[in-house]
């Protein structure tokens, strides 16, 4: 398998009136071509910010540390994403090699421009095709994502489409430039379960067909179980567990991942009580010392959790976890 994108030691802080706020803290992962990665975490865990840095798309007050490195492997060679400065250079990445789908499709389309002209505009921006050819491809893509009567929809505005239809159009638009990597930020959260199931099926088909990498950001572990090959779990800007989807869901190692799974209402056992993860996610202004999860951790082992940052421990070659419970075990064994 060849690597598509490598993220190394990504640390990102935002400059604000209250000082520097750490949003992402020393995160490293890589994604192979054709692989689907699920990125899970609560609001405020830094999952969207991480995904946006892959396109160098964060707000102006974002500060990357010098150690942070993101390498995108394109057909013409590796690109160091964070070193890109000019908008013209970034176009290679934004919408070219990487496309993004957002949570709220209504907010992602310009309301006063037809769906079709938005699709044509971005196709012409990223390639030197003619307008007629761009229209042909756009209609074809709308048809491919299951929109009925695509040539009519092409001339409609976003408000004329239903929520599920809009998200399909969004996917069509994101894929029409044939990106190497698709970032889907909570693409099904705003949709009904029945429509969510349809969109998930569609995305699975498209992965097989276009053979691109996908980063699927969601807080719904059910959606992850249905789509992803591997999972990264984030908490307060830290990547705390990474592994193949079956491993992480059936055999979670980090107390937070275990807590997330236990908090899910299960349909196969209506009598089991709902067990929340105790406490609330701390404010990013008051990041806990040591392990960031220690303030809510039910399995805290002592001062070591409050004082020392846990390091990554490999529980098997593809499954790693950052928790003192496991680093202690490894030291003993």
């Amino acid at each position, binding site marked *: 398998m060849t690597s598509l994108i490598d993220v190394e030691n990504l640390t990102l802080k935002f400059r604000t009136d209250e000082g520097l706020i750490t949003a992402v803290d020393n995160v490293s992962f890589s994604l192979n071509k054709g692989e689907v990665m699920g990125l899970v975490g609560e609001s405020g865990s830094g999952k969207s910010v991480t995904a946006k840095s892959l396109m160098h798309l964060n707000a102006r007050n974002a500060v990357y540390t010098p150690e942070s490195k993101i390498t995108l492997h394109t057909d013409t060679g590796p690109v160091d994403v964070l070193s890109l400065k000019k908008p013209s250079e970034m176009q290679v990445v934004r919408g070219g090699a990487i496309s993004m789908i957002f949570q709220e499709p209504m907010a992602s389309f310009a309301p006063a421009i037809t769906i079709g002209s938005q699709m044509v505009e971005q196709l012409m921006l990223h390639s030197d095709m003619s307008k007629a050819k761009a229209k042909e491809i756009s209609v074809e893509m709308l048809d491919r994502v299951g929109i009925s009567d695509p040539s009519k929809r092409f001339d409609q505005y976003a408000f004329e489409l239903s929520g599920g239809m809009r998200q399909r159009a969004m996917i069509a638009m994101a894929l029409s430039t044939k990106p190497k990597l698709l970032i889907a930020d909570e693409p099904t959260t705003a949709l*009904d379960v029945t429509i969510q199931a*349809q969109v998930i099926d569609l995305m699975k088909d498209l992965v097989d067909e276009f053979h691109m990498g996908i980063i699927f950001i969601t807080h*719904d572990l059910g959606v992850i179980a249905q789509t992803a090959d591997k999972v990264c779990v984030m908490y307060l800007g830290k990547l705390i567990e990474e592994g193949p989807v079956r491993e992480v869901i059936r055999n979670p190692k980090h107390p937070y991942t275990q807590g997330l799974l236990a908090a899910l209402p299960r349909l196969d056992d209506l009598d089991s009580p709902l067990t929340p993860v105790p406490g*609330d996610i701390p404010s990013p202004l008051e990041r806990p010392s040591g392990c960031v999860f220690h303030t809510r951790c039910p399995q805290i082992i002592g001062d070591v959790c409050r004082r020392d940052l846990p390091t990554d421990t490999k529980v098997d070659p593809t499954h790693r976890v950052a928790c003192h419970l496991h680093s202690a075990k490894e030291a003993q064994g």
Partner: protein
Amino acid sequence: MSTPLIKADNLTVGYNIGKSLLSKQVLKAVNGVSLEIEKGSFFGLVGESGSGKTTLGRALLKAAPITGGGAFYDDGEVRYDLTSLQGAQLKDYRKRAQLIFQDPYAALSPRMTVRDIIAEPLEVMGLTKTRAETDERVREIAAKCRLNLEHLRRFPHAFSGGQRQRISIARALVSGPQFVVADESVAALDVSIQADVLNLLKQIQRDMGLTFLFISHDLSVVAHTCDHVAVMYLGRLVETAPTRKLFEAPRHPYTKALFSAIPSLDPDDRGRAQKLTGEIPSPTNQPSGCKFHTRCPHAIDLCKSQEPTLEHVGDQHEVSCHRWRELIEVPA
């Protein structure tokens, strides 16, 4: 069986949407719904967006216009006919029936302290006479919702989603209501917090003997909290049953489809479930016959021409489908 607290009888909520006098068109958001909510129960209402579940909830709070049928409230002390409720009686009903909103970020005024937010209903309704009395009521309800005195002095921006939702709950309960409508009250929360708020709602409901109408699109949440569930589609009630029965033996094809659409946590279970095609039709242009026939995998000619009515299936279990008997053995 105890007397129902809320009873809807062929309840219809319609809105006039015709542009001119000649083309008068009525959009029926809720269409002939009959149901009974027993006192002290946790009643779940599920359906996709556009199914009319929120409108039904609001109509039962007298916050949406009831254009047909009737709705009644009876808590033993007073009995109100919601269609004709007005004046002093309506004011009294507002104390007895309250709403918890979906989005705790939008529901709280950023310029008021938490104490003022929770105290506002008491002041507006004139339930307390002195400030000391108000403070006591606020503290009492805040403690029930696990908010401490320190929290009361702060502004909403200092709180996380789960805490904000607890503030919303405290405000809804401070007037001492009997009937509470919780409209998607955990939908905006993270999974780890959602369970906490659900447990709190259940505990409060048991401790204070309240009756909840819990509106949600998330079946797994409903399964864990509600005693009785009603499923809505395009303004119609399609199935209603005690929770356990509904989840063990759903009868309506739509209910079955909703269940199978829930993403399974088992990574080896991918794509096994049969998915519903298409989307919920527009309420202004409703299908003939059974409203669900355009998406139903089992629709026959009868479904297109004649609308089914609710039929008795078992104990408190009713379904509105022509073919439910034939489809018992057919999985979703």
